[in-house]
């Protein structure tokens, strides 16, 4: 009885998740009248704007990940090692982006960093790119921080540090050579999640007027019929890829730990 | 007619026969222990009585009622788990009241019963606390009170003391036994600690590989083990090989011995003769049936008891002597003798 209900709930849920995926895939293949074809995909991949925006978002994602790692790893490490009393404060900050909507944050950026402000970032393309990167780093902060902090919990930060110090290592060496490799898996899993977030992000890029992948998809959706579902399939594949890599990293880590 | 009876219980998980033809009759108010090594099926038997596992075959009768097909919540049974079974979201009082509440007992009656139960377990002031504010021993006492509050017909305890430290374990086991006597509640207690089983129980069931090897009073199980497994599992044992020379006589390390009971083996066969450590004495004792030369191998000072290991008669013999202020324990390597009485020898079957 219970099992029947459970199966029912589970299968209905699966149906709800599968139908849109089937729908977008089927639709994306219907560009040519009467037969299934990959024409929509050819059109998407043949569009230089696709590659330009995708490349732009990818570059921004890379920058975001670097900023995130440089920001989060030392902070999380330091909080664990020396500043446990700062933990509630830091954790509160890292959770704020889940509470304050992204559109509000970017609205604040636009008004704060305009051409007449103390830091006129929106005045130039490079400045806006930097601002957008910081915005993405903010959006990714909750995930990155939690991932790294969990990773740090599994290693004995204090002992590792003391051992390194007794061998004469400085802070930079300790962080780069000792701590980072030990939380690499956590960093990677945070990085892939960041990648997924940045590639699909729309609001910040659109409002800062940058040629990112998200606004490109939106624009295409407003003007075409068959390319958007093809894009959705591609985006889904990318998301799946990012999550797959994330899991792979975790599994690899477990494997490594089991061997050690 | 016994109060609780398990007849021909069988339980199979997949192809794994975990409980085999298990029979047990328990009198009202009796305290029974299931004792056995890990994985021998103790918990499975208990869970079948509670109703969490359905027997593959066999039946369970409580107070004349066939309960085999009933759900756990229809059996009116109390159960205490190893640990962590208190509901963390309820205070001590709410935990104890839970069974009465789901039965629909009125609030004032419930409160009175909770108070009575908390007094019984010696924690009358703790009603308002949450489980995390209690020590492990206190938590288990509350678990006992919770199990007893609805006045169950049978109390089941699955290693309730094993997560506690040694001191608390001893004091709590005495307390459980006292409360059990006071209420006269029929109890099955699962443990793999033989000391616990022997000290608490009216009768002990020694289990091995899903089979009840022996059922009997602690004194009987300890002194008259019916199988080799029981003899070796319950208490420490010295085993000698003996050659059968007659219907009731053997030779032990060359010394002829007349046994208290007949041997069921033909002449010339080898039998295992077992002896408890406390039945072996150090030195030559007047009236001993066998005296063997021995070399002291190790001495363990346990306080009131000194456990000595000596090599004698071709095997290592463990023996216990009482501590005496005027007699220091023997030195390691000392040459001496050990004495034993034929009446203490247990012939092990199989």
């Amino acid at each position, binding site marked *: 009885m219970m099992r029947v209900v459970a199966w029912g709930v589970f299968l209905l849920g699966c149906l709800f998740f599968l139908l849109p995926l089937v729908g977008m895939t089927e639709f994306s293949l219907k560009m040519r009248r009467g037969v299934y074809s990959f024409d929509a995909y050819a059109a998407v991949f043949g569009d230089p704007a696709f590659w330009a925006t995708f490349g732009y978002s990818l570059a921004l994602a890379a920058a975001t990940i670097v900023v995130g790692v440089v920001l989060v790893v030392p902070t999380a490490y330091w909080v664990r090692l020396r500043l446990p*009393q700062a933990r509630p404060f830091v954790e509160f900050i890292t959770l704020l982006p889940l509470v304050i*909507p992204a559109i509000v944050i970017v609205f604040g950026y636009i008004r704060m960093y305009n051409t007449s402000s103390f830091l006129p970032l929106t005045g130039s393309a490079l400045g806006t790119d930097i601002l957008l990167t910081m915005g993405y780093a903010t959006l990714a902060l909750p995930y990155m921080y939690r991932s790294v902090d969990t990773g740090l919990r599994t290693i004995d930060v204090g002992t590792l540090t003391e051992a390194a110090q007794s061998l004469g290592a400085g802070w930079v060496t300790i962080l780069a050579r000792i701590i980072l490799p030990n939380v690499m898996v956590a960093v990677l899993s945070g990085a892939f999640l960041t990648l997924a977030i940045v590639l699909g992000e*729309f609001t910040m890029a659109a409002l800062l007027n940058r040629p990112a992948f998200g606004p490109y998809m939106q624009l295409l*959706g407003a003007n075409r019929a068959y390319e958007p579902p093809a894009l*959705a399939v591609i985006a889904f594949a990318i998301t799946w890829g990012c999550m797959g890599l994330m899991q792979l990293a975790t599994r690899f880590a477990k494997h490594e730990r089991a061997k050690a | 007619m016994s109060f609780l009876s398990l007849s021909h219980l069988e339980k199979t998980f997949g192809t794994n026969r975990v409980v085999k033809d298990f029979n047990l009759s328990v009198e009202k108010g009796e305290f029974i222990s299931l004792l056995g090594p890990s994985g021998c099926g103790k918990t499975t038997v208990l869970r079948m009585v509670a109703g969490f596992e359905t027997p593959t075959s066999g039946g369970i009768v409580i107070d004349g009622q066939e309960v085999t097909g009933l759900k756990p919540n229809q059996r009116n049974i109390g159960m205490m788990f190893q640990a962590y079974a208190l*509901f963390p979201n309820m205070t001590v009082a709410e935990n104890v009241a839970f069974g009465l509440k789901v039965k629909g007992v009125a609030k004032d009656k419930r409160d009175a019963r909770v108070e009575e139960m908390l007094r019984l377990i010696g924690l009358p002031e703790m009603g308002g606390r949450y489980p995390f504010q209690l020590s492990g021993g206190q938590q288990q006492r509350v678990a006992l009170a919770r199990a007893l509050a609805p006045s169950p017909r049978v109390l089941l305890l699955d290693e309730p003391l094993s997560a506690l430290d040694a001191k608390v374990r001893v004091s709590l086991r005495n307390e459980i036994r006292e409360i059990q006597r006071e209420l006269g509640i029929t109890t099955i207690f699962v443990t793999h600690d033989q000391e616990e089983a022997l000290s608490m129980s009216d009768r002990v069931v020694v289990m091995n590989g899903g089979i009840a090897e022996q059922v009997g009073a602690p004194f009987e199980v300890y002194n008259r083990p019916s199988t080799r497994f029981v003899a070796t599992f319950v208490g420490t044992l010295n085993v000698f090989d003996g050659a059968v020379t007659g219907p009731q006589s053997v030779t032990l390390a060359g010394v002829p011995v007349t046994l208290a009971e007949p041997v069921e083996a033909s002449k010339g066969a080898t039998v295992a003769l077992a002896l408890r450590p406390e039945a072996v004495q150090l030195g030559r004792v007047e009236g001993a049936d066998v005296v063997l030369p021995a070399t002291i191998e190790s001495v363990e000072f346990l306080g009131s008891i000194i456990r000595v290991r000596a090599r004698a008669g071709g095997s290592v013999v463990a023996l216990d002597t009482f501590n005496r202020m005027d007699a220091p324990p023997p030195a390691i390597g000392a040459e001496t003798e050990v004495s034993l009485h034929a009446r203490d020898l247990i012939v092990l079957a199989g």
Partner: protein
Amino acid sequence: MPTEPIRRAPRRFPLHWLGILPFAIFATLFLILPTMRIVLGAFQTPDGGFTLQNMLDLNTDSIRAAYWTSIKLSFYTAALGCAVGFAMAAAVVFGGLPKGVRSPLLTFSGVASNFAGVPLAFAFIATIGPVGLITVWLRTEFGINLRAYGFNLLSFWGLVITYLFFQIPLMILIITPALDGLKREWREAAAVLGATGVQYWRMVALPILFPSILGTFALLFANAFGAVATAFALTGPQLNIVPIKLFAQIRGDVLGNPNLGYALAFGMILITAGANLLYIWLRVRSERWLK
């Protein structure tokens, strides 16, 4: 512990805190100050004087309706997301489904909870949009015209269904570990004490899960409340919900008062923060029994 040396040598105190200075600067520049700018702007006239007029100006039919629709949208998708996600997680954890379905479900949930925004809208348009797979299938096979039944993807309920695609998986991801944390002993102890399955869930399991469910609800609520991309890609700028309105306002001053945008954004912060404060308050109340 680290507090000791601090007490003995107070001069080392600031050095310790220097370690999180980069983080503090980043958070200040890109999170705190921009937010403060919004909050301040909501109470300023265009030339910088203090005023309550912006907040009062929110009280128009159109803006009130936008807030109300947004709150309803967030509430429904969070509630339905919690309910359905809980049911699916419970089915997998307790329902006796084969062990093999658990890990794929969690992986898929990880993907689906991140598959939001523009492409998600495309997927639903292709499925239940005017010429979507299911719409067409129902029409040609059964003669059912969804539109005639009042269903329209580009409407409130269409948005609810679309949002559920990422809300449900998020709930599954968060609640599955919590369900794993329910000890078997609790269920069995309740059963031998005479409780039915329903009584166990009502008196033991749900109270224990309550904080997790509530926290997820608050998270899902904020998640839906601030979402722009999905709604924008689905309906364009017409749909009257707060984030879309704010989006339009930022792109070009559609409200006729630039500082009204601040007030609109401040209102959003108030509501998501309010939802989370409510959560924290309820959690503190419900967790007296937690360490």
